[in-house]
């Protein structure tokens, strides 16, 4: 690839600049990959060195420490208590007691970790029920719980190791402070620092716990599920256990023929439509939103507030009401067909949701109805920030309205809203509500419906994921694979676009 110098680059036209950037991005991929490999190598080297340093530090703390420090290696917090930092010490001790208790108790941590390798040994067996006078399945091991609590226990063990290390470090620090003759921080000081120097820890404790338990943990769990055969027929408890299957599910997803079902084609088809949808949903809203905002804000247009309020109604009214209602309006025997018939415009009812192409166009059009108001608000805010003298001087130079739009308004908007466009593209890829409430994925795609969940022509990956996990024939492992693939696509797009954006912003600029 030809490389331009800065001066040559500046002389290129807009389109050439963009192509050049695009080409240089892809040209940089091999080097980027190589850097990634190097980076990973460096990471592990640093990690190894870091661990080595930690161990030597722990060893030195033990060797040079007094008896209080040394006993802290076994009884956490002992040193702190012995040196008068009772609060800290008690917390350490309490954590150790809870941890040991949890690990050794029957069906406690040790059990879950031990079972993690197999996800359960004994499946449900047939047992005779005297009351019902019939054989029923008696569950034993529970694969789901084993996976869940196994992962949780691993988290807990990591937390314990971290705390133990902190406990050792505390002793070293305390010894050093005492050697210099200064007093140690008391429990009161510790508490006070929670609203002062360490206030950020206090503030973050609750939100981060929530994210850890309700987002991070489930995501790790679901990534693991992609490597099992967890589905409706192997729910891990009442009907059959599930176990590890390695990369089998990914192989299924990328196979042309699994039991007569072409998963690869189904996935490809849905992904293509998802990208088409996200593209149109984002850019139609974007440009039409700007257009509407400019109309409303034009000098000499009255009743600005009225127009704005009417548009905002779609934001104010919960989406599911408007979407469900509009969906029914366009049904085969809905209002729209009735109205068109009454006006004599059509003889036959139009099957808006029954024809693949029409249904796809309809969801994009109705999404415009939903989306323009947001863009109108955003664009209004930004348009007001464009310096008015830019327009003044360009008009004196004889620029037409259209020229002003393409040379001033649009570049300014694109520059400022670049990151917003990216996030709105990716969130449109995952726009469950609009698709599910409007069409539910209809019309059914007969060719693809052999795959899990009845696949339709307007299904996005995210609604497909939902269908796989609800109703009959749930295949959680497949849903996990789809989820992971959605993540990869979104991450890839974000990476590419961020590298092409003109405004990679430094957040400190705003402060």
């Amino acid at each position, binding site marked *: 690839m030809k490389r331009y110098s800065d001066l040559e680059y500046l002389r290129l036209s807009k389109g050439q600049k963009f192509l050049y950037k695009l080409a240089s991005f892809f040209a940089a991929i091999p080097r980027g990959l190589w850097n990634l490999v190097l980076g990973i190598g460096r990471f592990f080297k640093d990690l190894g060195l870091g661990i080595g340093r930690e161990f030597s530090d722990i060893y030195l703390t033990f060797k040079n420490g007094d008896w209080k420090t040394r006993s802290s290696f076994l009884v956490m917090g002992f040193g702190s208590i012995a040196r008068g930092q009772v609060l800290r010490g008690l917390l350490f001790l309490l954590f150790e007691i809870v941890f040991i208790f949890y690990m050794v108790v029957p069906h406690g941590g040790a059990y879950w970790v031990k079972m993690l390798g197999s996800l359960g040994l004994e499946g449900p067996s047939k047992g005779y029920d005297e009351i019902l006078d019939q054989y029923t399945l008696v569950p034993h091991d529970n694969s789901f719980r084993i996976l869940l609590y196994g992962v949780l226990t691993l988290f807990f063990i990591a937390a314990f190791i971290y705390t133990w290390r902190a406990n050792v470090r505390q002793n070293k620090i305390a010894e050093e402070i005492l050697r210099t003759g200064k007093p140690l921080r008391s429990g009161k000081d510790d508490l006070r620092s929670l609203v002062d120097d360490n206030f950020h820890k206090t503030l973050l404790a*609750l939100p981060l716990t929530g994210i850890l338990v309700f987002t991070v943990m489930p*995501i790790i769990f679901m990534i693991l599920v992609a490597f099992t055969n967890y589905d409706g027929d192997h729910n891990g408890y009442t009907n059959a256990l599930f176990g590890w299957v390695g990369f089998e599910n990914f192989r299924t997803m990328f196979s042309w023929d699994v039991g007569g079902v072409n998963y690869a084609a189904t996935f490809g088809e849905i992904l293509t439509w998802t990208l088409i949808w996200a593209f149109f949903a984002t850019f139609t809203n974007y440009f039409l939103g700007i257009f509407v905002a400019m109309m409303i804000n034009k000098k000499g247009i009255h009743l600005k507030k009225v127009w704005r309020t009417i548009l905002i109604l779609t934001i104010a009214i919960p989406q599911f009401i408007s979407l469900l*209602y509009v969906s029914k309006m366009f*049904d085969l025997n809905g209002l729209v067909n009735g109205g068109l018939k009454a006006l004599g415009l059509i003889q036959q009812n139009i099957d808006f949701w029954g024809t693949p192409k029409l249904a796809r166009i309809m969801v994009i059009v109705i999404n415009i109805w939903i989306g323009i108001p947001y863009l109108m608000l955003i664009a209004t805010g930004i348009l007001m920030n464009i310096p008015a003298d830019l327009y003044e001087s360009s008009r004196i130079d004889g620029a037409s309205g259209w020229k002003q739009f393409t040379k001033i308004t649009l570049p300014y908007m694109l520059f400022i*809203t670049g990151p917003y466009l990216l996030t709105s593209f990716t969130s449109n890829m995952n726009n469950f509500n609009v698709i599910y409430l409007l069409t539910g994925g209809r019309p059914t795609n007969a060719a693809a419906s052999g795959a899990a969940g009845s696949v339709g022509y307007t299904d996005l990956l995210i609604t497909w994921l939902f269908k796989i996990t609800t109703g009959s024939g749930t295949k959680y492992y497949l849903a996990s694979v789809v989820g992971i693939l959605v993540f990869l696509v979104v991450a890839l797009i974000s990476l590419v676009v961020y590298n092409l954006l003109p405004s990679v912003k430094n957040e400190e600029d705003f402060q």
Partner: protein
Amino acid sequence: MSNNNTAAIEREKRHMGLKASARISNTIIYILLIAISIVWLIPFVCIVLQSFRMESTGRVGYVIPQVWGLGNYRKLFDPSTNFLRWYLNTFIIALVVAVVQTVIVLCMSYTLSRFRFKMRKPLMQFMLILGMFPGMLAMIILYRVLDDLHLTGQYGNAVPGLILVYVASSGMGYYVSKGFFDTIPKTLDEAARVDGANRAQVLYKIILTLAKPIVIYTILTAFMGPWGDFVFARYVSQVIPQAMNVAVGLQSWLATDTMVHDNYTLFCAGGVVVAVPVAILFMCLQRYYVEGVTGGAVKG
């Protein structure tokens, strides 16, 4: 001289022309705006009108009812439909979520805006990556966990479970309010710190008084979220009648074609009852919403 004159006349003509063209373009814009307004209003007008239709319950090809009446609304509040229960469920959820989520979001965004600590950047990048996973993926397991804790619709009440799900991860949505906090000058904090206030006092006494718009924005969006949520509510409530929220409930009325035939006008009435209070609240506070939305987009 004459040259000058013709130039002046030319200019005058052009001015007139500009005026005329401005008038034409304004007229076109008015026509477009009126057309847009009609398109935007039609569904809402239709839903209100059809909620008063008495002669039939299904879908018909006309909008204006032949027999007007409040029958649908009366039926809505009849114990035979679960609507009142759904409404109450959603209202309680929305209220609790509005309070707790606001606290969490403000904690998160204030910290990330004001404090510089070692893990700050990695934390923000980590959450960015976390946000790229479809949230629905987590729902499958959360459902099972909530089920183990007896917090799903199977046990008759999905309200606590849903509150937990909505609130727990709300820390991830800190972007908009962080952007707002970033605009409050740091010198204010420093001045207060010099005067002997600790960090907590800076937050309560200075920042929060200045951050009123963003606090209201956060409360408003947090309150409106549960009214429109469909996916999580469906998972957690398991479509058990008394455990649903309004979205899942009203959708269940239109699940099949026969149900549409029986419940269409009832759905319209339900939609109106849900939408009117929320919309009024939104319209009253829209100034803050607009501020938040535009600020959020500009700061990315």
